[in-house]
Protein backbone atom coordinates (compact mmCIF):
# COMPACT_ATOMS: atom_id res chain seq x y z
CA UNK A 1 0.00 0.00 0.00
CA UNK A 2 2.67 2.41 1.11
CA UNK A 3 4.86 1.12 -1.61
CA UNK A 4 2.36 1.72 -4.36
CA UNK A 5 1.54 5.24 -3.18
CA UNK A 6 5.20 6.11 -3.15
CA UNK A 7 5.43 4.84 -6.66
CA UNK A 8 2.46 6.93 -7.68
CA UNK A 9 4.07 10.01 -6.21
CA UNK A 10 7.23 9.20 -8.07
CA UNK A 11 5.32 8.76 -11.30
CA UNK A 12 3.55 12.05 -10.74
CA UNK A 13 6.81 13.87 -10.14
CA UNK A 14 8.23 12.37 -13.27
CA UNK A 15 5.28 13.32 -15.37
CA UNK A 16 5.40 16.80 -13.88
CA UNK A 17 9.03 17.04 -14.85
CA UNK A 18 8.21 15.84 -18.30
CA UNK A 19 5.54 18.45 -18.49
CA UNK A 20 7.96 21.17 -17.44
CA UNK A 21 10.46 20.07 -20.04
CA UNK A 22 7.85 20.22 -22.72
CA UNK A 23 6.77 23.64 -21.58
CA UNK A 24 10.34 24.84 -21.69
CA UNK A 25 10.70 23.53 -25.22
CA UNK A 26 7.55 25.43 -26.15
CA UNK A 27 8.97 28.56 -24.59
CA UNK A 28 12.10 28.20 -26.71
CA UNK A 29 10.05 27.82 -29.85
CA UNK A 30 7.60 30.55 -28.88
CA UNK A 31 9.75 33.70 -28.39
CA UNK A 32 9.28 35.16 -31.90
CA UNK A 33 5.58 35.79 -31.30
CA UNK A 34 5.87 37.11 -27.75
CA UNK A 35 9.02 39.08 -28.57
CA UNK A 36 7.28 40.70 -31.51
CA UNK A 37 4.36 41.57 -29.31
CA UNK A 38 6.68 43.09 -26.73
CA UNK A 39 8.54 44.99 -29.41
CA UNK A 40 5.48 46.70 -30.77
CA UNK A 41 3.33 46.79 -27.65
CA UNK A 42 5.83 48.81 -25.60
CA UNK A 43 6.02 51.91 -27.85
CA UNK A 44 2.25 51.63 -28.26
CA UNK A 45 1.98 51.88 -24.48
CA UNK A 46 3.72 55.24 -24.64
CA UNK A 47 1.23 56.49 -27.25
CA UNK A 48 -1.71 55.64 -25.03
CA UNK A 49 -1.62 58.81 -22.92
CA UNK A 50 -1.26 61.47 -25.66
CA UNK A 51 -3.76 59.73 -27.94
CA UNK A 52 -6.19 59.35 -25.04
CA UNK A 53 -5.90 63.03 -24.16
CA UNK A 54 -6.34 64.06 -27.80
CA UNK A 55 -9.39 61.87 -28.16
CA UNK A 56 -10.84 63.20 -24.92
CA UNK A 57 -10.37 66.82 -26.02
CA UNK A 58 -11.82 66.11 -29.44
CA UNK A 59 -14.95 64.62 -27.85
CA UNK A 60 -15.14 67.39 -25.25
CA UNK A 61 -15.24 70.08 -27.92
CA UNK A 62 -17.50 68.02 -30.17
CA UNK A 63 -19.98 67.59 -27.33
CA UNK A 64 -19.94 71.35 -26.89
CA UNK A 65 -18.45 71.55 -23.37
CA UNK A 66 -15.80 73.93 -24.74
CA UNK A 67 -15.64 76.08 -27.86
CA UNK A 68 -12.02 74.98 -28.45
CA UNK A 69 -11.05 78.49 -29.53
CA UNK A 70 -7.84 78.84 -27.49
CA UNK A 71 -7.11 75.12 -27.35
CA UNK A 72 -8.14 73.81 -30.75
CA UNK A 73 -9.19 70.15 -31.05
CA UNK A 74 -6.89 67.74 -32.92
CA UNK A 75 -8.99 67.69 -36.08
CA UNK A 76 -8.69 71.46 -36.41
CA UNK A 77 -4.92 71.29 -35.94
CA UNK A 78 -4.74 68.56 -38.55
CA UNK A 79 -6.88 70.65 -40.93
CA UNK A 80 -4.51 73.62 -40.43
CA UNK A 81 -1.51 71.44 -41.23
CA UNK A 82 -3.21 70.11 -44.36
CA UNK A 83 -4.15 73.60 -45.45
CA UNK A 84 -0.58 74.82 -45.05
CA UNK A 85 0.70 71.76 -46.83
CA UNK A 86 -1.66 72.18 -49.77
CA UNK A 87 -0.57 75.77 -50.42
CA UNK A 88 3.09 74.74 -50.31
CA UNK A 89 3.62 77.06 -47.34
CA UNK A 90 4.44 74.21 -45.00
CA UNK A 91 7.28 72.88 -47.15
CA UNK A 92 8.74 76.38 -47.42
CA UNK A 93 8.68 76.93 -43.66
CA UNK A 94 10.02 73.50 -42.82
CA UNK A 95 12.80 73.83 -45.39
CA UNK A 96 13.82 77.22 -44.00
CA UNK A 97 13.95 75.93 -40.41
CA UNK A 98 15.63 72.64 -41.20
CA UNK A 99 18.33 74.28 -43.33
CA UNK A 100 19.05 76.79 -40.55
CA UNK A 101 19.36 74.02 -37.98
CA UNK A 102 21.50 71.95 -40.35
CA UNK A 103 23.90 74.83 -41.04
CA UNK A 104 24.10 75.91 -37.40
CA UNK A 105 24.44 72.34 -36.14
CA UNK A 106 27.16 71.61 -38.71
CA UNK A 107 29.19 74.68 -37.76
CA UNK A 108 28.70 74.14 -34.03
CA UNK A 109 29.68 70.46 -34.25
CA UNK A 110 32.83 71.15 -36.28
CA UNK A 111 33.97 73.97 -33.98
CA UNK A 112 33.04 72.07 -30.81
CA UNK A 113 34.73 68.88 -31.96
CA UNK A 114 37.96 70.55 -33.07
CA UNK A 115 38.34 72.80 -30.03
CA UNK A 116 37.13 70.09 -27.64
CA UNK A 117 39.65 67.63 -29.08
CA UNK A 118 42.47 70.17 -28.80
CA UNK A 119 41.54 71.00 -25.20
CA UNK A 120 41.20 67.36 -24.29
CA UNK A 121 44.42 66.23 -25.92
CA UNK A 122 46.91 68.99 -25.05
CA UNK A 123 47.11 70.13 -21.45
CA UNK A 124 48.64 73.46 -22.40
CA UNK A 125 45.86 74.24 -24.87
CA UNK A 126 43.31 73.33 -22.22
CA UNK A 127 44.88 75.74 -19.75
CA UNK A 128 44.89 78.48 -22.38
CA UNK A 129 41.52 77.87 -23.95
CA UNK A 130 39.21 76.24 -21.47
CA UNK A 131 38.77 79.09 -18.93
CA UNK A 132 37.67 81.44 -21.72
CA UNK A 133 35.26 78.91 -23.20
CA UNK A 134 33.83 78.19 -19.75
CA UNK A 135 33.34 81.92 -19.13
CA UNK A 136 31.57 82.32 -22.49
CA UNK A 137 29.43 79.32 -21.65
CA UNK A 138 28.15 81.10 -18.55
CA UNK A 139 26.53 83.74 -20.77
CA UNK A 140 22.94 82.85 -21.61
CA UNK A 141 23.19 82.31 -25.35
CA UNK A 142 20.12 84.42 -26.12
CA UNK A 143 22.08 87.39 -24.75
CA UNK A 144 24.14 87.27 -27.94
CA UNK A 145 21.13 88.01 -30.13
CA UNK A 146 21.36 91.85 -30.19
CA UNK A 147 25.10 91.72 -30.79
CA UNK A 148 24.79 89.11 -33.55
CA UNK A 149 22.15 91.23 -35.28
CA UNK A 150 24.43 94.28 -35.13
CA UNK A 151 27.42 92.30 -36.35
CA UNK A 152 25.88 89.92 -38.85
CA UNK A 153 22.63 91.58 -39.87
CA UNK A 154 19.04 90.50 -39.36
CA UNK A 155 19.06 87.78 -42.03
CA UNK A 156 20.37 84.21 -42.15
CA UNK A 157 23.93 84.69 -40.87
CA UNK A 158 22.99 85.89 -37.39
CA UNK A 159 20.41 83.12 -37.02
CA UNK A 160 22.86 80.40 -38.00
CA UNK A 161 25.50 81.90 -35.72
CA UNK A 162 23.12 81.76 -32.76
CA UNK A 163 22.24 78.12 -33.42
CA UNK A 164 25.92 77.27 -33.85
CA UNK A 165 26.71 78.86 -30.46
CA UNK A 166 23.99 76.78 -28.84
CA UNK A 167 25.32 73.56 -30.40
CA UNK A 168 28.99 74.38 -29.76
CA UNK A 169 29.07 74.19 -25.96
CA UNK A 170 27.64 70.73 -25.31
CA UNK A 171 29.75 69.29 -28.13
CA UNK A 172 32.92 71.01 -26.88
CA UNK A 173 32.34 69.86 -23.31
CA UNK A 174 31.38 66.36 -24.39
CA UNK A 175 34.46 65.85 -26.53
CA UNK A 176 36.88 67.35 -24.02
CA UNK A 177 35.39 65.45 -21.10
CA UNK A 178 35.36 62.19 -23.03
CA UNK A 179 39.02 62.51 -24.02
CA UNK A 180 40.02 63.34 -20.46
CA UNK A 181 38.06 60.35 -19.22
CA UNK A 182 39.74 57.80 -21.52
CA UNK A 183 41.11 55.06 -19.29
CA UNK A 184 44.89 55.39 -18.86
CA UNK A 185 45.07 51.61 -18.64
CA UNK A 186 43.64 51.24 -22.13
CA UNK A 187 46.03 53.89 -23.47
CA UNK A 188 48.86 51.85 -21.96
CA UNK A 189 47.77 48.87 -24.08
CA UNK A 190 48.27 51.10 -27.12
CA UNK A 191 51.72 52.09 -25.84
CA UNK A 192 52.72 48.47 -25.29
CA UNK A 193 51.89 47.72 -28.93
CA UNK A 194 53.87 50.83 -29.88
CA UNK A 195 51.08 52.67 -31.69
CA UNK A 196 52.15 55.90 -33.34
CA UNK A 197 50.36 59.15 -32.43
CA UNK A 198 47.79 58.96 -35.25
CA UNK A 199 47.27 55.22 -34.70
CA UNK A 200 46.71 55.85 -30.99
CA UNK A 201 44.02 58.41 -31.87
CA UNK A 202 42.39 56.20 -34.49
CA UNK A 203 42.53 52.86 -32.69
CA UNK A 204 42.23 53.86 -29.02
CA UNK A 205 41.02 57.41 -28.46
CA UNK A 206 38.31 57.69 -31.13
CA UNK A 207 36.49 54.47 -30.27
CA UNK A 208 36.81 55.20 -26.55
CA UNK A 209 35.35 58.68 -27.00
CA UNK A 210 32.56 57.71 -29.39
CA UNK A 211 29.75 56.88 -26.92
CA UNK A 212 30.13 60.20 -25.11
CA UNK A 213 30.44 61.99 -28.46
CA UNK A 214 27.13 60.60 -29.66
CA UNK A 215 25.47 61.82 -26.47
CA UNK A 216 27.06 65.25 -26.98
CA UNK A 217 25.76 65.36 -30.58
CA UNK A 218 22.26 64.52 -29.44
CA UNK A 219 22.31 67.15 -26.70
CA UNK A 220 23.74 69.64 -29.21
CA UNK A 221 21.01 68.87 -31.72
CA UNK A 222 18.36 69.37 -29.06
CA UNK A 223 19.82 72.78 -28.28
CA UNK A 224 19.97 73.52 -32.01
CA UNK A 225 16.20 73.01 -32.25
CA UNK A 226 15.73 75.18 -29.19
CA UNK A 227 17.81 78.01 -30.57
CA UNK A 228 16.26 77.99 -34.03
CA UNK A 229 13.01 79.09 -32.41
CA UNK A 230 14.77 81.94 -30.64
CA UNK A 231 16.54 82.84 -33.88
CA UNK A 232 13.30 82.86 -35.86
CA UNK A 233 11.60 84.98 -33.24
CA UNK A 234 14.03 87.76 -34.09
CA UNK A 235 12.45 88.81 -37.31
CA UNK A 236 12.07 86.00 -39.80
CA UNK A 237 9.76 85.93 -42.80
CA UNK A 238 9.67 82.16 -43.00
CA UNK A 239 10.30 79.13 -40.84
CA UNK A 240 8.37 77.29 -38.15
CA UNK A 241 9.32 79.96 -35.60
CA UNK A 242 7.76 82.53 -37.89
CA UNK A 243 4.57 80.42 -37.94
CA UNK A 244 4.51 80.60 -34.14
CA UNK A 245 4.86 84.39 -34.04
CA UNK A 246 2.42 84.80 -36.92
CA UNK A 247 -0.11 82.57 -35.14
CA UNK A 248 0.22 84.61 -31.99
CA UNK A 249 -0.15 87.98 -33.72
CA UNK A 250 -3.09 86.93 -35.85
CA UNK A 251 -4.77 84.90 -33.10
CA UNK A 252 -4.51 81.49 -34.76
CA UNK A 253 -3.84 78.99 -31.94
CA UNK A 254 -4.30 76.05 -34.31
CA UNK A 255 -1.34 77.28 -36.36
CA UNK A 256 0.79 77.64 -33.21
CA UNK A 257 -0.02 74.12 -32.02
CA UNK A 258 0.55 72.80 -35.56
CA UNK A 259 4.02 74.35 -35.63
CA UNK A 260 4.77 72.95 -32.17
CA UNK A 261 3.71 69.47 -33.25
CA UNK A 262 5.90 69.70 -36.35
CA UNK A 263 8.83 70.84 -34.18
CA UNK A 264 8.30 67.80 -31.97
CA UNK A 265 8.18 65.46 -34.96
CA UNK A 266 11.30 66.98 -36.57
CA UNK A 267 13.24 67.02 -33.30
CA UNK A 268 12.40 63.42 -32.49
CA UNK A 269 13.13 62.27 -36.06
CA UNK A 270 16.55 63.92 -36.29
CA UNK A 271 17.50 62.61 -32.85
CA UNK A 272 16.42 59.15 -33.93
CA UNK A 273 18.50 59.50 -37.11
CA UNK A 274 21.65 60.13 -35.05
CA UNK A 275 20.80 57.18 -32.84
CA UNK A 276 20.24 54.84 -35.77
CA UNK A 277 23.30 56.05 -37.67
CA UNK A 278 25.62 55.48 -34.70
CA UNK A 279 24.04 52.31 -33.31
CA UNK A 280 26.23 49.94 -35.37
CA UNK A 281 29.34 51.64 -33.97
CA UNK A 282 28.19 51.26 -30.37
CA UNK A 283 27.02 47.66 -30.38
CA UNK A 284 29.88 46.72 -28.06
CA UNK A 285 28.54 48.84 -25.23
CA UNK A 286 27.42 47.15 -22.07
CA UNK A 287 24.40 49.36 -21.64
CA UNK A 288 21.84 48.83 -18.92
CA UNK A 289 18.97 49.67 -21.27
CA UNK A 290 20.03 47.09 -23.80
CA UNK A 291 20.33 44.30 -21.27
CA UNK A 292 16.87 44.84 -19.85
CA UNK A 293 15.48 44.85 -23.36
CA UNK A 294 14.28 48.45 -23.15
CA UNK A 295 15.79 49.20 -26.54
Amino acid at each position, binding site marked *: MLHSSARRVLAMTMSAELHVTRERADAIAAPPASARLRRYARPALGLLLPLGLALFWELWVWLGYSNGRLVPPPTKIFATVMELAKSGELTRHITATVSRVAAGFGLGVVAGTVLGAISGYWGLARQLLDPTVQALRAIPSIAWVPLFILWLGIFETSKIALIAVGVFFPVYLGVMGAILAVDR*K*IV*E*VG*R*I*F*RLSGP*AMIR*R*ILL*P*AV*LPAYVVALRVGLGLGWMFVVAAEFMGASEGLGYLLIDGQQLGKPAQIVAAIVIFAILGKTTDWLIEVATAPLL*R*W*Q*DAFGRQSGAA
Partner: protein
Amino acid sequence: MLALDRVGKTYPNGVHALERFSARIKPGEIVAIIGGSGCGKSTLLRAIAGLDRASTGTVTLDDAAITAPHAKIGIIFQEPRLLPWLSVADNIGFGLSDLPADIRREKVDRALTRVGLADKAKAWPRELSGGQAQRVAIARALVPQPEVLLLDEPFSALDAFTRRDLQDHLLDLWKDTRPTLILVTHDVDEAVVLADRVLVMRPRPGRLFEVINVNLARPRDRASPLFENFKRHVLTALDRSLDRNIPDADPKSMAGEAMWW
Protein backbone atom coordinates in the same frame (compact mmCIF):
# COMPACT_ATOMS: atom_id res chain seq x y z
CA MET B 1 69.47 37.76 -22.44
CA LEU B 2 67.64 40.33 -20.36
CA ALA B 3 70.04 42.28 -18.14
CA LEU B 4 68.99 44.60 -15.35
CA ASP B 5 71.89 46.67 -14.14
CA ARG B 6 71.43 48.62 -10.91
CA VAL B 7 67.91 49.72 -11.88
CA GLY B 8 66.53 52.38 -9.53
CA LYS B 9 63.40 54.49 -9.58
CA THR B 10 62.49 57.61 -7.67
CA TYR B 11 59.11 59.08 -8.56
CA PRO B 12 58.68 62.84 -9.07
CA ASN B 13 56.81 62.99 -5.75
CA GLY B 14 59.98 61.82 -4.00
CA VAL B 15 58.95 58.22 -3.35
CA HIS B 16 62.02 56.03 -3.60
CA ALA B 17 60.42 52.91 -5.08
CA LEU B 18 63.36 50.85 -6.26
CA GLU B 19 67.07 50.80 -5.56
CA ARG B 20 69.95 49.25 -7.48
CA PHE B 21 68.17 46.15 -8.72
CA SER B 22 70.44 43.90 -10.77
CA ALA B 23 69.66 40.56 -12.36
CA ARG B 24 70.44 38.67 -15.53
CA ILE B 25 67.69 36.51 -16.92
CA LYS B 26 68.46 34.03 -19.65
CA PRO B 27 66.13 33.29 -22.58
CA GLY B 28 63.32 30.90 -21.73
CA GLU B 29 63.77 31.26 -17.99
CA ILE B 30 60.75 31.75 -15.73
CA VAL B 31 61.39 34.19 -12.91
CA ALA B 32 58.96 35.10 -10.17
CA ILE B 33 59.36 38.36 -8.29
CA ILE B 34 57.71 38.28 -4.90
CA GLY B 35 57.62 40.64 -1.95
CA GLY B 36 55.47 42.63 0.43
CA SER B 37 53.53 45.64 -0.76
CA GLY B 38 55.59 48.68 -1.68
CA CYS B 39 58.68 46.67 -2.53
CA GLY B 40 58.83 48.01 -6.08
CA LYS B 41 57.77 44.85 -7.91
CA SER B 42 55.42 46.63 -10.30
CA THR B 43 57.82 49.55 -10.68
CA LEU B 44 60.50 47.12 -11.79
CA LEU B 45 58.19 45.40 -14.24
CA ARG B 46 57.06 48.70 -15.76
CA ALA B 47 60.70 49.69 -16.22
CA ILE B 48 61.42 46.42 -18.04
CA ALA B 49 58.31 46.95 -20.19
CA GLY B 50 59.54 50.43 -21.09
CA LEU B 51 56.33 52.02 -19.79
CA ASP B 52 58.20 54.04 -17.16
CA ARG B 53 61.87 54.93 -17.45
CA ALA B 54 64.20 53.94 -14.65
CA SER B 55 65.77 56.91 -12.83
CA THR B 56 69.11 55.14 -12.60
CA GLY B 57 70.65 52.03 -14.11
CA THR B 58 69.79 50.28 -17.35
CA VAL B 59 67.57 47.56 -18.73
CA THR B 60 68.99 45.83 -21.79
CA LEU B 61 67.60 43.07 -23.96
CA ASP B 62 70.29 41.45 -26.12
CA ASP B 63 72.40 44.59 -25.74
CA ALA B 64 69.59 46.94 -26.80
CA ALA B 65 68.71 49.46 -24.10
CA ILE B 66 65.02 49.45 -23.19
CA THR B 67 63.69 52.98 -22.72
CA ALA B 68 60.32 52.59 -24.45
CA PRO B 69 57.98 49.65 -25.18
CA HIS B 70 59.81 47.11 -27.31
CA ALA B 71 58.48 44.74 -29.96
CA LYS B 72 60.07 41.72 -28.27
CA ILE B 73 58.66 42.49 -24.82
CA GLY B 74 55.01 41.83 -24.04
CA ILE B 75 53.10 42.40 -20.85
CA ILE B 76 49.97 41.04 -19.20
CA PHE B 77 48.41 43.19 -16.51
CA GLN B 78 46.39 42.34 -13.45
CA GLU B 79 43.24 43.26 -15.39
CA PRO B 80 42.72 41.88 -18.91
CA ARG B 81 42.56 45.43 -20.35
CA LEU B 82 40.75 44.25 -23.46
CA LEU B 83 39.48 46.94 -25.81
CA PRO B 84 35.72 46.81 -25.28
CA TRP B 85 34.90 47.95 -28.82
CA LEU B 86 36.80 45.09 -30.48
CA SER B 87 35.61 41.49 -30.74
CA VAL B 88 37.64 38.83 -28.98
CA ALA B 89 39.37 37.92 -32.26
CA ASP B 90 40.23 41.55 -33.04
CA ASN B 91 41.57 42.01 -29.53
CA ILE B 92 43.91 39.08 -29.97
CA GLY B 93 45.03 40.42 -33.34
CA PHE B 94 45.51 43.96 -32.00
CA GLY B 95 49.31 43.76 -32.03
CA LEU B 96 49.45 42.24 -35.51
CA SER B 97 48.14 45.16 -37.53
CA ASP B 98 51.34 45.29 -39.61
CA LEU B 99 50.70 41.81 -41.01
CA PRO B 100 48.52 41.04 -44.05
CA ALA B 101 44.93 40.26 -43.11
CA ASP B 102 45.01 36.56 -44.04
CA ILE B 103 48.16 35.81 -42.02
CA ARG B 104 46.74 37.78 -39.11
CA ARG B 105 43.49 35.83 -39.25
CA GLU B 106 45.33 32.54 -39.32
CA LYS B 107 47.46 33.45 -36.29
CA VAL B 108 44.42 34.71 -34.38
CA ASP B 109 42.46 31.55 -35.19
CA ARG B 110 45.30 29.39 -33.98
CA ALA B 111 45.65 31.41 -30.77
CA LEU B 112 41.90 31.25 -30.15
CA THR B 113 41.96 27.48 -30.43
CA ARG B 114 45.07 27.31 -28.30
CA VAL B 115 43.43 29.18 -25.39
CA GLY B 116 40.19 27.22 -25.87
CA LEU B 117 38.02 30.14 -26.92
CA ALA B 118 37.45 29.32 -30.59
CA ASP B 119 33.70 29.64 -30.09
CA LYS B 120 34.09 33.14 -28.63
CA ALA B 121 35.88 34.70 -31.62
CA LYS B 122 33.03 37.07 -32.41
CA ALA B 123 31.99 37.75 -28.80
CA TRP B 124 32.46 41.15 -27.16
CA PRO B 125 34.83 41.34 -24.18
CA ARG B 126 31.92 42.17 -21.86
CA GLU B 127 30.41 38.78 -22.61
CA LEU B 128 33.42 36.91 -21.19
CA SER B 129 34.02 35.69 -17.65
CA GLY B 130 37.05 36.99 -15.77
CA GLY B 131 39.08 33.89 -16.54
CA GLN B 132 38.14 33.92 -20.23
CA ALA B 133 39.03 37.61 -20.52
CA GLN B 134 42.44 36.98 -18.99
CA ARG B 135 42.96 34.10 -21.45
CA VAL B 136 42.29 36.52 -24.27
CA ALA B 137 44.79 38.95 -22.74
CA ILE B 138 47.37 36.15 -22.59
CA ALA B 139 46.69 35.25 -26.22
CA ARG B 140 46.94 38.92 -27.26
CA ALA B 141 50.33 39.21 -25.57
CA LEU B 142 51.66 35.89 -26.94
CA VAL B 143 50.47 36.15 -30.53
CA PRO B 144 53.25 38.58 -31.61
CA GLN B 145 55.70 35.99 -30.18
CA PRO B 146 57.57 38.15 -27.68
CA GLU B 147 60.94 37.00 -26.38
CA VAL B 148 60.11 38.32 -22.95
CA LEU B 149 56.65 38.21 -21.43
CA LEU B 150 56.04 40.24 -18.28
CA LEU B 151 53.12 39.36 -16.02
CA ASP B 152 51.99 41.82 -13.36
CA GLU B 153 49.97 39.80 -10.83
CA PRO B 154 48.03 38.35 -13.75
CA PHE B 155 45.81 35.96 -11.83
CA SER B 156 45.30 37.80 -8.56
CA ALA B 157 41.81 39.00 -9.47
CA LEU B 158 40.58 35.47 -10.21
CA ASP B 159 39.10 32.83 -7.94
CA ALA B 160 41.40 30.08 -6.68
CA PHE B 161 40.15 27.43 -9.08
CA THR B 162 40.40 29.62 -12.19
CA ARG B 163 43.81 30.81 -11.02
CA ARG B 164 45.22 27.26 -10.88
CA ASP B 165 43.69 26.46 -14.20
CA LEU B 166 45.31 29.51 -15.82
CA GLN B 167 48.68 28.87 -14.18
CA ASP B 168 48.77 25.41 -15.76
CA HIS B 169 47.50 26.84 -19.01
CA LEU B 170 50.20 29.52 -19.03
CA LEU B 171 52.92 26.88 -18.61
CA ASP B 172 51.37 24.89 -21.41
CA LEU B 173 51.39 27.94 -23.72
CA TRP B 174 54.91 28.82 -22.63
CA LYS B 175 56.13 25.47 -24.04
CA ASP B 176 55.15 26.57 -27.58
CA THR B 177 57.81 29.25 -28.01
CA ARG B 178 59.50 29.31 -24.59
CA PRO B 179 59.72 33.04 -24.05
CA THR B 180 61.32 34.44 -20.91
CA LEU B 181 58.59 34.91 -18.31
CA ILE B 182 58.91 37.45 -15.53
CA LEU B 183 56.03 37.17 -13.14
CA VAL B 184 55.26 39.61 -10.36
CA THR B 185 53.13 37.96 -7.73
CA HIS B 186 52.28 37.95 -4.05
CA ASP B 187 51.16 34.36 -4.16
CA VAL B 188 53.87 31.99 -2.87
CA ASP B 189 52.14 28.96 -4.35
CA GLU B 190 52.05 30.63 -7.78
CA ALA B 191 55.73 31.58 -7.59
CA VAL B 192 56.84 28.05 -6.71
CA VAL B 193 54.62 26.29 -9.23
CA LEU B 194 55.76 28.44 -12.14
CA ALA B 195 59.26 29.76 -11.55
CA ASP B 196 62.77 28.48 -12.08
CA ARG B 197 63.95 31.27 -9.81
CA VAL B 198 62.14 33.28 -7.17
CA LEU B 199 63.49 36.76 -6.45
CA VAL B 200 62.36 37.94 -3.03
CA MET B 201 62.31 41.71 -2.63
CA ARG B 202 62.13 43.86 0.49
CA PRO B 203 60.36 47.21 0.74
CA ARG B 204 61.22 50.87 1.40
CA PRO B 205 63.10 51.28 -0.82
CA GLY B 206 62.36 48.24 -2.96
CA ARG B 207 65.43 46.08 -3.39
CA LEU B 208 66.48 42.49 -3.95
CA PHE B 209 66.63 40.46 -0.75
CA GLU B 210 67.09 36.81 -1.60
CA VAL B 211 67.19 34.53 -4.63
CA ILE B 212 65.73 31.05 -4.41
CA ASN B 213 66.26 28.53 -7.19
CA VAL B 214 63.36 26.13 -7.54
CA ASN B 215 64.99 22.96 -8.80
CA LEU B 216 61.82 21.00 -9.40
CA ALA B 217 60.94 19.12 -12.55
CA ARG B 218 57.77 20.13 -14.38
CA PRO B 219 54.92 19.42 -14.19
CA ARG B 220 55.11 20.20 -10.50
CA ASP B 221 52.93 18.43 -8.02
CA ARG B 222 51.47 21.04 -5.70
CA ALA B 223 50.94 18.39 -3.03
CA SER B 224 54.45 16.92 -3.01
CA PRO B 225 56.68 17.38 0.09
CA LEU B 226 59.42 18.93 -2.05
CA PHE B 227 56.99 21.52 -3.34
CA GLU B 228 55.94 22.29 0.23
CA ASN B 229 59.59 22.58 1.14
CA PHE B 230 60.22 25.25 -1.51
CA LYS B 231 57.08 27.10 -0.45
CA ARG B 232 58.32 27.16 3.14
CA HIS B 233 61.68 28.36 1.94
CA VAL B 234 60.09 31.29 0.06
CA LEU B 235 57.77 32.10 2.97
CA THR B 236 60.71 32.21 5.37
CA ALA B 237 62.58 34.53 3.03
CA LEU B 238 59.49 36.76 2.80
CA ASP B 239 59.20 36.92 6.58
CA ARG B 240 62.87 37.74 6.90
CA SER B 241 62.59 40.42 4.20
CA LEU B 242 60.02 42.26 6.33
CA ASP B 243 62.11 42.05 9.51
CA ARG B 244 63.96 45.34 9.86
CA ASN B 245 66.52 43.79 12.21
CA ILE B 246 67.94 41.61 9.48
CA PRO B 247 70.43 43.62 7.41
CA ASP B 248 70.64 43.51 3.63
CA ALA B 249 73.14 41.10 2.21
CA ASP B 250 76.31 42.58 0.79
CA PRO B 251 75.21 44.23 -2.51
CA LYS B 252 78.17 42.76 -4.39
CA SER B 253 77.49 39.20 -3.38
CA MET B 254 73.76 39.78 -4.01
CA ALA B 255 74.42 40.88 -7.54
CA GLY B 256 76.58 37.83 -7.98
CA GLU B 257 73.90 35.58 -6.62
CA ALA B 258 71.24 37.09 -8.82
CA MET B 259 73.42 36.49 -11.83
CA TRP B 260 73.96 32.90 -10.96
CA TRP B 261 71.67 30.30 -12.48
